[in-house]
């Protein structure tokens, strides 16, 4: 269970500005959940302006914090939406 799981998280709008990038690389371990991903991101420089529980999408769908990540998943951290 300690095999590494590299994840590239897409960033948009205010989150992309906070991190100064449109994506960030995070190294998790196999079996990691969305919650683990958020913990890792929140410890990175630029995360000061992130809310405690940002929304996350996995494979272009909103994901629960319990969802387990798999190699190849498309992951994105979603700022509060403002369409319409």
């Amino acid at each position, binding site marked *: 269970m300690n095999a590494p799981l590299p994840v590239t998280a*897409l960033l*948009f*709008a*205010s989150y992309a*500005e906070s991190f100064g990038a449109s994506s960030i690389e995070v190294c998790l371990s196999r079996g990691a959940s*969305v919650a683990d991903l958020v913990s890792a991101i929140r410890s990175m420089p630029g995360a000061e*302006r*992130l*809310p*405690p*529980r*940002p*929304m*996350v*999408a996995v494979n*272009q*769908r*909103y*994901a*629960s*914090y319990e969802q387990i990540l798999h190699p190849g998943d498309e992951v*994105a951290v*979603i*700022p*509060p*939406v*403002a*369409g*319409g």
Partner: protein
Amino acid sequence: MSHARADLVDRPIDPATLLAEVASPARGAICSFVGTVRDQHGGRAVTGLQYDCYQAMAERELALIVAEARDRFGEPALAVEHRVGTLMVGDVAVAIAAAHARRANAIGAMQYVIEELKKRLPIWKLEHYADGTREWVGGSSAMSEAAGAAA
């Protein structure tokens, strides 16, 4: 099978086109919703805005919302366009047209689409103000609050 279309577009939206698209002799009730860029927000004068989006997910989510609306409201004809890119005050940001034989179905579908789209579509708005500043709407203020309902 009635007509259904949902697109993100980077050119001006013409609501009349969407109305014409859903109309048919079998569907006597047609309704539309059009959202335009307002000249002020939170007391500040707005000059324009820029929509950024997570395109693949936004297209998927928009198609999902339209499919849900068709399922819940008796398969109305539906056409939806959401603009991305740079908009000026008065420009159409979103247009929805729904048609059905019964008006409750057309109106219900239109309302479902606009409400869900506002909640779920991964699109962000960078407002440009008359004083030269810019701000991500919903972003900075919501970011300081707990997003407990996020997941």
